[in-house]
């Protein structure tokens, strides 16, 4: 059997003189859950669009499931599924009709279409609304239908471009349970972009991409370990004095926040006793946090992931507004 992985080498995509994807190389193993983490405009969607044959690459090579995305487009299309970042449903069709359209185009035999749609509609909680036109759906419902549609034909390589953005935690959990089952049963290769930490943590490996370039690529644990420092937050009776004492006494870069004084040290738990010896102040609370992917993201890109997330949520809303407006 052919490899169901993804291989990308020296991938460049320019829009005019601007390089949206700038010399990117990576490989996704068959059956792997691979995550793309990056701020807005980093080039995530552009990369996915190239891999899915929707956008032509400028330089480099890319193979999906063993097929070249330039020379073997139809073979690539037969191997993949894609949940788009933006809504791509037909508003005048019902939820069920949207699914059927997809099923037929992907060659699901007509006799099986209903049986396949039912559990998916169940999963995203749209069974009752399935026969209503999509234009009457809420934004989250559209998103859920979109995901159900992407999972419908069970491709060998599935691309998920920020699939669960704007969904409530319970729905996200349902979707991830389904995805896990699918992966266990079909060994589906998955390529995910996300802004949610817990989803990034699920990935076998993560690539952090910024300004069109991959700045780090590894397992979540290894990435966190690579930062090599814990974050300590200590609240005292006089934070300003504590900050000064810590900065002087241990030569630390400290930051005063509303939760207390915050700084990073290689071994947080070992540091706390030393700190107590040194500080002649009333300590109200101490918090030691192992590095999170947030910190990793910050370390490699210089942006806070949550800022990026807020940005995209706004963008999502604006999009919905523009669409709604144009439609009327």
């Amino acid at each position, binding site marked *: 059997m052919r490899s169901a992985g993804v291989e990308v080498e020296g991938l460049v995509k320019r829009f005019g003189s601007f390089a949206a994807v700038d010399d990117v190389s990576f490989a996704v193993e068959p059956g792997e859950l691979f995550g793309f983490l990056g701020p807005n405009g980093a080039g995530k969607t552009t990369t996915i669009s190239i891999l*899915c*044959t*929707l*956008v032509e690459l400028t330089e480099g090579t890319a193979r999906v499931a063993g097929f070249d995305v330039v020379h073997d487009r*139809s073979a690539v*299309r*037969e191997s*993949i599924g*894609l949940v*788009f970042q*933006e*809504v*791509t*449903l*037909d*508003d*005048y*069709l019902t939820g069920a*009709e949207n699914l*059927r*359209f*997809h099923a*037929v*185009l*992907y*060659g*699901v*035999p*007509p006799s*099986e279409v209903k*049986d*396949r749609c039912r*559990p*998916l509609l*169940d*999963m995203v909680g749209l069974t009752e609304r399935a026969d209503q*036109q999509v234009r009457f759906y809420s934004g989250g419902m559209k998103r859920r239908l979109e995901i159900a549609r992407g*999972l*419908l*034909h*069970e491709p060998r390589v599935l691309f998920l471009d920020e699939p669960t953005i704007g969904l409530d935690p319970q729905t996200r959990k*349902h979707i991830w*349970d*389904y995805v896990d*089952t*699918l992966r266990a*049963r*079909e060994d589906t290769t998955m390529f995910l972009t996300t802004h949610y930490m817990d989803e990034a943590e699920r990935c076998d490996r993560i690539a952090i991409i910024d300004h069109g370039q991959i700045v780090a690529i590894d397992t979540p644990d290894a990435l966190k370990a690579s930062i090599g420092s814990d974050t300590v937050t200590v609240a005292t009776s006089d934070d300003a004095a504590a900050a000064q004492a810590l900065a002087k006494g241990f030569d630390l870069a400290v930051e005063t926040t509303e939760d207390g004084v915050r700084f990073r040290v290689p071994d947080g738990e070992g540091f706390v006793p030393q700190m107590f010896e040194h500080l002649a102040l009333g300590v109200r609370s101490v918090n030691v946090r192992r590095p999170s992917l947030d910190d990793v993201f910050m370390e490699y890109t210089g942006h806070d992931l949550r800022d990026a997330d807020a940005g995209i949520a706004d963008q999502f809303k604006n999009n919905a507004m523009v*669409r709604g407006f*144009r*439609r009327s």
Partner: protein
Amino acid sequence: MADAVLPARMPATAPLGVRREGRLIRNVRAVWMVWIRDLIRLKRTPTRIVTGIAQPLLFLFVLGAGLEHLIGSQRAGGVNYQQYLFPGILAMSVLTSALFSSIAIVWDREFGFMREMLVAPVSRSSLVLGKALGGGSVAVVQGIILVIAAPLVGVDVTVGSFFAMLGFLLLLAFALVGFGIVIASRMQRMESFQMVMALVLQPMIFLSGAIFPLVALPQWLGVVTRLNPATYGIDAIRRVLLPHIAPLTILSWTVPLWADALITFAFGALMLALAVRLFATAE
């Protein structure tokens, strides 16, 4: 039953791995599905049909009645002007509707559904063919509804002439849908599409013999009307509905019916082929 031991509500998992149909079946079904989608959308926006029919009727009864006495039957090739106009507005309705049906493509691109279709494992020609059938059938349905007005203006429709007319309507619709898709594939925005369409459609109708007979025209007008591909489809429809009318001529050559059909068909085939090519790179 063995199933009884399973929990009442199955876990949210689809039945075993997906069986996929072969390429040919998949493509044939895709054509059908894209076509059906257009019909479903039409059913849900019925006002489109109403406007598509109201305008031609206005032309027929207002313009027709108003010009009846100015254009004698001599000029209209042996019939009165309203009779002459009837096949013209039939074709005009089909022309407008077919050409404008491709607006759905611009629409789909703007609202993202195009990407859903383009990433699917079906050939671009299936998508274009489905679109052509969708636009074509909407246009032809309008044409058929308009035939009801035939007795009111003294055009006798027989079973034979009805089906002959239907054939030519289909041919004309196909050709124009293809032309529409070619234009739509090049348009990124709704506004520019509508502008280009208006610029194309009106000359195409005015210069086709739909509204006035193509006889004794200034020379340049005579040439332009014969270069207009729609002229031939309209001539054919008129001849099957009005058997005694004077046929289209080029210089002194009387264009036979089969040539009308051939020219319309050739134009349509060319446009559809071009549409497939352009559609492939439409994103």
